[in-house]
């Protein structure tokens, strides 16, 4: 808490808070729990439309898929803990978001893990990467929720740090929704799941500060311990308990522990609660009331039930051998009271915990975009360098460690434009995440828009129409005026892009203070998007038949700031790609029509690494080469061949199709040009008939599969 906040607490309370109260307030007034620096700006995001059943405000958002199916979706970050203890930090991040989905009443059915690290040349970054992946795998695999996608990116700015985000979706019938708040007094509060230990004490306050250089030693105790076995039992027991129809409210214990879960559950509609802290099963001896109230031990849920239903509900917990205890009750008076035996150890107005005043920081615009001249480099050399970048190479090493098939819904698997899950015999749900911190650093407004636009393009590339968005905003300290400005610009970009596509954000998360040793990270908004696709329309990126024509949709400009090409050349400046929303909408709509009319055989959106990488990925996926003449690529302005091939201009797709569909296909787009054909066993780039560069498919595959070698492994 800041000094002015402590003063405010004293005024509102009319006395000094005692030690237990102070610890609880410290947790609830933390940035992580209260969103005090972000709340005001988050209101700018669109949150309602015809698809939305429940927008932001509870543990997860809910989207209507069809009459009988609702999709619950949420996103979380576990950056600070993962930077200190990558295995436990990443694993408990998965556990947390899964319980968020579960506590709305849904079965968790898929995870996405967008993760970001410093350069792999350094041992510590490799360690963080390998153990974050292992943490996600061990947890997700054991609870039987498939990890179907995500991102893995590497950037100098994240040296010695990591951004671990995780999105989850769940499935339920719309009428199965259970809220996280109560609206009556006299309900019993039942705590079920793991015992409470000293792990994760002050987890949210730790996540609301910058990490020091030796955080690894100092902050271990703030990281929670993962127990996926108990989580799996908790999932099944919770879903079985919900079937009784007798659960009045349900909330998971996450950041802020028991204090946060119970005060929010009781206080949201103006009720209060009494908590008997000494009843909480302890994992370690001699814990005190304060530790128990703010511990963030994992795999715990809080149920509100009527006394007469207690036996029926707890019989289910006992079947699954889960420990439970009636930890408190709801009361009419809006107070939050904690007992330790007979002693009243805390007594606060519940609103003092849940209504935290917003903070507005100074915002100072910055402008670092500068025109740069692209250095001389041959197309062939550039191609090999970009293809070898850890950001471009196949992430198979990552997603093969994740069970991406469990539950039997995975139609499109990881490594494609978007994952698709089978929801019923006719329709699938597409799910994807995107973020471009390097664009966002140069231009936070356009960087944010590009995250949305790319997610929508990824959905369209598999044939899905977008349904809804969630956002995870990873930033450095909001107390830095430039960072705060970039945060506000990001929100504006997210809002404008979503509005253009008619989309709403149904849930989200903000993570500030992502710094190590006073080095701020780049602004890193991550967007996850849901879409709906008819199973028979599902499209993939792999080239299908030799002789098919290849065309590009969209226009290529000299937009290389933040590109993979500039990154491998060590160029930090340049201008980030601009998002033109009308263009995005038109081209995306054209792509969806082309799929619905059956005119195309393969589609891939153009993003990281530009046209060169998009074509290479299509060739490798299909096991077929191509010949492309870059002089046929429509451009705006003067571009050299490498600039054409590696520009990351937005609103572009590559498609392949049978020649006979050319005319009909062309009619769907304003910006469309045939640039070559599927051919041979090599990637061949020409300019006006003359060969610029060629690479055999085998060589390209060898480079593209080199992630294990980059990690020092042999296979």
């Amino acid at each position, binding site marked *: 808490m800041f000094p002015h906040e402590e003063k405010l607490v004293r005024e509102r309370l009319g006395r000094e808070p005692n030690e237990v109260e102070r610890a609880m307030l410290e947790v609830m007034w933390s940035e992580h729990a209260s969103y005090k620096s972000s709340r005001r700006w988050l209101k700018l995001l669109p949150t309602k439309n015809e698809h939305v059943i429940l927008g932001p405000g509870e543990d997860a958002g809910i989207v209507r898929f069809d009459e009988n199916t609702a999709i619950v979706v949420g996103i979380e970050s576990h950056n600070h803990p993962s930077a200190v203890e990558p295995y436990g930090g990443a694993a408990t991040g998965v556990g947390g978001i899964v319980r968020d989905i579960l506590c709305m009443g849904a079965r968790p059915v898929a995870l996405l893990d967008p993760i970001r690290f410093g350069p792999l040349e350094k041992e510590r970054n490799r360690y963080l990467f390998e153990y974050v992946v292992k943490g996600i795998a061990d947890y997700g*695999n054991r609870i039987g929720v498939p990890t179907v996608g995500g991102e893995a990116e590497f950037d100098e700015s994240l040296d010695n740090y990591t951004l671990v985000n995780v999105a989850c979706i769940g499935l339920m019938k719309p009428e199965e929704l259970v809220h996280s708040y109560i609206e009556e007094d006299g309900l019993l509060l039942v705590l079920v799941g793991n015992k409470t230990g000293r792990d994760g004490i002050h987890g949210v306050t730790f996540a609301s500060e910058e990490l020091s250089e030796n955080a690894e030693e100092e902050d271990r105790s703030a990281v929670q311990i993962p127990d996926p076995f108990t989580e799996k039992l908790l999932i099944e027991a919770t879903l079985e308990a919900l079937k009784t129809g007798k659960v009045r409210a349900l909330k998971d214990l996450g950041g802020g522990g028991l204090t946060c879960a119970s005060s929010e559950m009781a206080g949201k509609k103006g009720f209060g609660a009494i908590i008997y802290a000494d009843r909480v099963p302890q994992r370690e001896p001699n814990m005190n009331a304060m530790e128990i109230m703010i511990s963030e031990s994992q795999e715990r849920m809080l149920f509100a039930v009527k006394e007469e239903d207690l036996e029926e509900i707890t019989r289910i917990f006992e079947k*699954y051998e889960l420990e439970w205890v009636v930890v408190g009750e709801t009361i009419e008076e809006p107070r939050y009271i904690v007992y330790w035996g007979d002693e009243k150890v805390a007594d606060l107005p519940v609103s003092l915990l849940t209504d935290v005043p917003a903070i507005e920081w100074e915002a100072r615009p910055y402008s670092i975009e500068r025109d740069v001249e692209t250095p001389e480099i041959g197309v062939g050399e550039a191609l090999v360098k970009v293809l070898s970048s850890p950001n471009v190479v196949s992430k198979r090493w990552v997603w*093969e460690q994740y069970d991406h*098939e469990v539950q039997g819904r995975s*139609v499109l698997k990881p490594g494609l434009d978007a994952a698709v899950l089978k929801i019923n015999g006719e329709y699938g749900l597409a799910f994807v995440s995107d973020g471009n911190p390097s664009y966002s650093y140069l231009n936070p407004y356009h960087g944010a828009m590009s995250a949305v636009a790319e997610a929508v393009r990824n959905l369209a590339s598999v044939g899905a129409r977008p349904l809804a968005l969630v956002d995870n905003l990873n930033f450095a300290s909001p107390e830095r005026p430039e960072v705060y400005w970039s945060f506000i610009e990001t929100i504006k970009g997210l809002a404008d892009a979503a509005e253009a596509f008619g989309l709403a954000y149904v849930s989200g998360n903000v993570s500030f203070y992502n710094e190590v040793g006073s080095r701020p990270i780049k602004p890193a908004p991550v967007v996850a998007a849901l879409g709906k696709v008819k199973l028979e329309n599902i499209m993939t990126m792999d080239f299908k038949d030799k002789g098919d024509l290849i065309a590009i949709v969209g226009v290529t400009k000299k937009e290389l700031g933040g590109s993979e090409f500039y990154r491998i050349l060590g160029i930090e400046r340049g201008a980030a790609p601009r998002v033109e929303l009308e263009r995005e909408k038109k081209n995306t709509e054209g792509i969806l029509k082309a799929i619905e009319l059956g005119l195309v055989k393969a589609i891939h959106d153009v993003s990281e690494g530009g046209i060169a990488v998009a074509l290479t990925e299509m060739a490798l996926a299909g096991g077929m080469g191509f010949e492309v003449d870059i002089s046929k690529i429509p451009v705006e302005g003067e571009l050299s061949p490498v600039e054409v091939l590696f520009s990351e201009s937005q609103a572009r797709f590559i498609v392949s199709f049978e020649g006979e569909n050319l005319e009909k296909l062309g009619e769907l787009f304003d910006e469309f040009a045939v640039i070559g054909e599927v051919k041979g066993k090599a990637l061949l780039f020409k300019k006006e008939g003359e060969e610029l560069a060629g690479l055999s498919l085998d060589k390209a595959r060898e480079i593209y599969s080199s992630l294990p070698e980059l990690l020092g492994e042999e296979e």
Partner: protein
Amino acid sequence: MPRFAVIVFPGTNCDFETVSAIKKAGGNAERVWYKQSLKDFDGAVLPGGFSYADYLRAGAISARAEIMEEVKALASDGKPVLGICNGFQILTEAGLLPGALRPNRIPRFLCRWVYLKVSDAQTAFTQFYKDGEVIRMPIAHAEGNYYTESLDGIRITFQYSDERGNVTEKANPNGSLLNIAGISNEKGNVLGMMPHPERASDKWLGSEDGLKVFRSMVEWARR
């Protein structure tokens, strides 16, 4: 219609889709909590997952649960008993099948689609395949590296192969002895396999090759 118990231990996680696949194959299937009885069932399936979180050793704790005595009784009655992935690990730990599943050659979890050669099409679970048929389904395990001291009393049922059915070193994803992906007992009514046939029982998910495992099993139980 034959009735199958899909046994659910704490930590089992492939039970729902295994039930669906059996139903699709024409059988009746129910999830059975490990404390319930197997009375009145015509066969049992031990599905995949992480029973008891693989504590001690994969499958070791479940193998000692009381319900396994009933599974053994079903097996000795000649009724079909199928263990998939963690279920295979449980069957070896319980002594229903010989050998053990060691950590993968590269010791980490591996989820990947593989080709299998049906090396024995006479068992309760393979009678609808042709001998030598090549099928495709996913694996997802960290301990699938099969080893046994002796092949006596074992019928090698599935082997990792290339798409033409050649059993090669390169096609072996986990270091398993003789590329073994699945084995059955001499009578052919107890099968353990690491690949997941229930994940290859729907055309939208990439393959329906696995469905014949369940069709064969249903047909066997019907006799």
